């Protein structure tokens, strides 16, 4: 490896400078408030977790994990997502007392990037988990809260695609029979390779009716009518349960008054997060090439931590949301008091007064300033308390 420049950071790590910091802070605050209003409680979990527990339970690919060893020789990971740590906490501590649980978080997660080193390997997610509730109302609440959060943050144009991994599995199993064949076909969906999917289907030893059912599956995208279309593809009822889920979800969201154009079904949607078991969703926004949020139901993850119960949640990627919002906060107005030693006390008193009335004030000894013009330009207002008393001047 070539010698590092002193200002270099590890691959994929980023500094957050004042403008972006303020923006992140504000968006985080607005969304956090919405989540709290919906009764979710914020928690924090450690940055480091055991590879064997949380590392294994999370669905992030092995080669994306940052690993290190502790002094006892255990492999640790920098948490690659927040869902698994929260499942761990919930299963071990909190679920004994009350159920269901509504938890929220905003935290950095870590995923090593293989391609193009500049992509963020550390990024903030803000999200919720609703644990111990198996009803569709909980799924609906998740999506409704997600929509509210994004709207409150100021995002205008976005869309949520909703799929159901249970439907994909049951539908494929009904036609294909074995798990191996189901997995082979599902892989094409993961890879978003519809061409490969169609070719694969064509060479399968199936009746032409079944082949057509599999091909038609790819076009199950759109509004409420998709459920009818999907229903028509079913034989002997396998997968109907999942469709009932989706129908209920639609009704739930309609009651929230939040369906509109925002929510679309896309039954070919699958996720790399392999712990999802039911309804799952992704959020897309104008101007950003990647999903800005995702979530879904994960009913078996908790059992890995010894508590068998259902859960659902979502995570918003703060960096991508801010990209979609498209604005960086302008610096909040700050005033400056320039003083010389003679009038120091007066300057301090004036600063104290202004600060207690909520104004942001910088106190600067004039002898510490090399370029007076450049440094006064930074401030909304500059008060000069220099030289003998009584000659106050404002620039």
């Amino acid at each position, binding site marked *: 490896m070539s010698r590092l420049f002193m200002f270099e950071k590890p691959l994929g790590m980023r500094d957050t400078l004042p403008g972006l910091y303020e923006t992140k802070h504000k968006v985080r605050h607005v969304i956090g408030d919405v989540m709290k209003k919906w009764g979710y409680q914020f928690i924090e979990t450690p940055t480091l977790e055991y590879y064997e527990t949380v590392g294994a339970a999370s669905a992030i690919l092995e080669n994306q994990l940052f690993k290190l060893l502790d002094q006892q020789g255990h492999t640790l990971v920098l948490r690659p997502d927040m869902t698994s740590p929260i499942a761990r906490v919930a299963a071990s501590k909190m679920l004994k007392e009350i159920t269901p649980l509504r938890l929220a978080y905003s935290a950095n997660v870590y995923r090593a990037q293989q391609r193009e080193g500049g992509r963020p390997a550390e990024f903030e997610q803000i999200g919720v988990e609703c644990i111990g509730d198996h009803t569709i109302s909980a799924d609906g609440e998740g999506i409704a809260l997600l929509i509210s959060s994004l709207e409150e943050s100021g995002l205008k144009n976005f869309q949520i695609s909703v799929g159901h991994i249970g439907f994909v599995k049951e539908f494929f199993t009904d036609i294909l029979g074995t798990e191996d064949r189901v997995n082979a076909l599902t892989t094409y969906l993961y890879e*978003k390779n519809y*061409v490969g999917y169609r070719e694969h289907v064509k060479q399968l030893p199936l009746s032409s009716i079944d082949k057509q059912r599999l091909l038609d599956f790819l076009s199950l995208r759109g509004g409420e009518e998709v459920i009818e279309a999907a229903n028509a593809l079913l034989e002997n009822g396998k997968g109907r349960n999942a469709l009932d889920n989706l129908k209920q979800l639609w009704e739930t969201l309609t009651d929230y008054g939040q369906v509109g154009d925002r929510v679309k079904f896309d039954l070919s949607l699958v996720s790399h997060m392999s712990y999802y078991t039911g309804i799952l969703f992704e959020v*897309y926004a104008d101007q950003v*090439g*990647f999903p800005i949020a995702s979530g879904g139901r994960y009913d078996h993850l908790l059992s890995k931590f010894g508590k068998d119960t259902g859960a659902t949640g979502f995570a918003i990627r703060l960096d991508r949301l801010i990209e979609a919002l498209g604005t960086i906060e302008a610096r909040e107005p700050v005033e400056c008091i320039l003083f010389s030693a003679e009038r120091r006390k007066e300057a301090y008193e004036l600063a104290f007064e202004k600060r207690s009335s909520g104004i942001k004030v910088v106190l600067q000894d004039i002898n510490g300033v090399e370029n007076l013009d450049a440094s006064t330009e930074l401030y909304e207002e500059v008060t000069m308390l220099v030289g003998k008393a009584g000659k106050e001047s404002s620039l």
Partner: protein
Amino acid sequence: MKEPLTIAMPKGRIFEEAAALLREAGFKLPPEFDDSRKLIIDVEEENFRFILAKPMDVPTYVEHGVADLGIAGKDVMLEEERDVYEVLDLKISQCYLAVAGLPNTKMNDVAPKIATKYPNVASTYFREQGEQVEIIKLNGSIELAPLIGLADRIVDIVSTGRTLVENGLVEYEQIVDITSRLIVNPVSYRMKDKRISELVEKIADVLKQKATV
């Protein structure tokens, strides 16, 4: 007003066939389209913006969403592994990826070397064969490598096989068939669903007609 769509087109070999296909599908592309040196061409009538990119870069533009759609060879898709939807096999620019080398030669037992523009594809292929090889990435004129002793074999696309013959090389194994694909950014696929589906259907219809002729 139709929603604007940005389409990334590959310069060079595939371009003409791709443009012809779009015209067949009823899109009104200007005549200067074909020999323009511009990198961005706006077709206002259709509200299309075409960007002309290196074939290898088309999936990158589409993955990042600066292009909603693109036309890319399957060879590039295999090499780049970008997170985009591959929605149609356009059946144009047919060729295949193959292993070639000097006739009647064996791979060096000690340090077999493979020269290629497709390091990912080549290393995956030889790993699957259980062979340990050294991959040498070149950016063009791959046929040169075995001739001057840089590599025992090359992995490259073969369409007519003429380049191989002219350079005294023979094909050893075919790896995979290649055609051009229509690819779509996952976000555009949802946000501009209507317009993209319309376009995909039009092209699919042309392909269907061709297949039945």
